[in-house]
């Protein structure tokens, strides 16, 4: 098992109660695996309109593989402008 840390913003910070959250996953998980584990650990994420995962400051596709050292973030529905 590997510890994966994600940055939390907006409603994600409210849900996890902190600026980042750690999940335990097999090594080199896909982005889809990370999403799934996040919802398993924090079911409230399943109640959002949607959310994305960013990898190294870009929107990540579900089948991308998370490498050691990647910076991950939870991106709840944006509302700038």
């Amino acid at each position, binding site marked *: 098992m590997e510890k994966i840390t994600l*940055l939390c913003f907006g409603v994600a910070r409210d849900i996890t109660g902190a600026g980042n959250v750690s999940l335990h996953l097999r090594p080199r998980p896909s982005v889809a695996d990370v999403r799934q584990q996040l919802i398993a650990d924090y079911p409230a994420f399943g109640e959002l*309109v949607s959310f994305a995962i960013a990898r190294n400051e870009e929107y990540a596709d579900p089948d991308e593989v998370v490498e050691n050292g990647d910076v991950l973030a939870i991106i*709840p529905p*944006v*509302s*700038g402008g």
Partner: protein
Amino acid sequence: MTDIKLSDQKLSIDAAYASVHDPACGGIVLFIGTIRNHNKGKTVTHLDFESYAPMAIKEMTRIAEKAKSEHKLQAVTLHHRVGNLAIGDIAVIIAVSSHHRKAAFTGCEQVIDELKEHVPIWKKEFLEDGSYWVNARP
């Protein structure tokens, strides 16, 4: 030229205008987004904007460059405010200059549309009886 800024200080329309102004271009379009005093029938008292700054800057830059090349714009400026904002404050300014005014309108509208869809900035609205993250829940 593209000029991208994420700032916790008051945004300046004059600065945005000056950044795209060019004696070779006759047409400038600006979009200015301000804080409304109501939303869905509720009275808003103030707002908080939070951002994932490095990614927001990357997305803003990508959106500005894309509009610039797709519509052959001369310059695109995109300034967004973060932090605590009061009613009437300016949240975003988009300024676009172009040789052709139609392209300036289309390009400016595209930038605000894409910003609202993709840039990792989150708005928390404070009402008289509570607060919530806009768009987050159904």
